[in-house]
């Protein structure tokens, strides 16, 4: 997209609101939806990768040493990773105002 969404005028839109740039959903910041944020404790983590498998938004990355990192650009704070983690290595805290 040539411009950020909030700067686009009606003249900037394609006829019929057609998206002619495949794959541009990746620039959509679903992290804006989050009301709770995941906190990761690497000491409790057993590197099983279950959180990575369950995350519906592919918002968890597995690092070289097997530990994980949340991608807060996409993470909606659904809490599925925390729910599924067998050791309680992920907890959710409220986002501050």
């Amino acid at each position, binding site marked *: 997209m040539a411009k950020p*969404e*909030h700067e*686009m*005028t*009606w*003249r*900037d*839109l*394609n*006829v*019929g*609101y*057609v*998206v*002619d740039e*495949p794959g541009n959903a990746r620039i959509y910041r679903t992290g804006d939806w989050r009301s709770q944020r995941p906190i990761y404790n690497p000491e409790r983590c057993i590197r099983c990768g279950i959180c990575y498998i369950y995350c519906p938004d592919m918002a968890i990355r597995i690092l070289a040493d097997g530990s994980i990192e949340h991608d807060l650009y996409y993470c909606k704070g659904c809490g599925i990773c925390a729910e599924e983690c067998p050791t309680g290595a992920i907890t959710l805290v409220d986002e501050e105002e």
Partner: protein
Amino acid sequence: MAKRVGMEVSIAAAEAVKQANTDIVAAYPITPQTHIVEHLSELVNNGELDAEFIPVESEHSAMSVCAGGAAVGARTFTCTSSQGLILMSEIVYAASSLRLPMLMILANRSLNSPLSIWNDHSDVMAIRDCGWIQVFADNGQEVYDHVFVGYRVAEDRNVLTPFIVNLDGFILTHVIEPIEMIEQEVVDRYLPPYQPLHRLHPDRPVTMGCFGPPILFTEAKKAQDEAMNKTMPHILQAWQEFGDLTGRYYHPVETHETEGAKIIVVTQGALGETASVGIEHMREHNEAVGLVKIRLWRPFPFDEFRKAVKGAELVVVMDRAISYGGPGGPLAGEVRAALYPEESHPRVVNFIIGLGGRDVSPGDFVEMIQQAKVKPGEWYEIHGVRE
């Protein structure tokens, strides 16, 4: 030379769809549209029309197929009436918002309940704001001609908006009229192959119908409204070129005996022909009565309409649909809105007539005009109802 033949209007409409070299026909049968689709299925079956005839299981599917067909770049046709239109209406709105050109012939019929297969305009008025270009045909020739005009306008790169041709169920669909058929070579000159701007194709993927977040939805709707408002010169151009090729010139509003008229009757569709008989009778008795027929319903021809009724003291609007609890019929609402900004405007009296197949005669028009003369500008009255 163009041939003039006696033909049922539905058959003529189907022949026009064939001559327009339509690629996809998707429709579900419903009275009184049936003959159009039946004849098209014969034309495809006997090889006269090289098109995909898709016999869908509902009108919702018919319009979905049409949207998909137009999205891949096919010239697409559907045809329906009444409940069928209401069932397909979800996708009708999507087709125009996606700016997918296609043609729909709508054989106007009343809506349930009570169940009625007969004519009025309540079906199209229920989707008035659907974003399609909409015309009302007065006779069979106009239906036949507007298949070509409709595709030509809809597929124009400056328009890219679907097109509805309204014709009155039974009153037009099932009558035999003399139709001047256009030679194929002339049709081909007028209607070049459809060249889509965006289309679904695996070589160059695009997304149609994605979601619009609040930060963009308003802009998307503004773009659609602007596009519709800018269709008028292209519609006029298409009519002009059609006239140059066939000798039949069409306009957004047609006037009949409006010169010096103090009273002007406003109609849509086949009512215009009946009204003109009543009005000619009154003219013979030195009554200054004229007729304005609204051919183009969306976009509404505000300027042309104001010009057409200029000088009138009384405008009598004939509606073939009710807006329950509203300010009268849908046409009267538009007429009043068109005239309100004028410094001095005529009194507008509104009659609802011809509901669910109730006959309207030239004498009814004479009677309504006489009543309107002494009526205050009331909202509306249903004419001919038994008290």
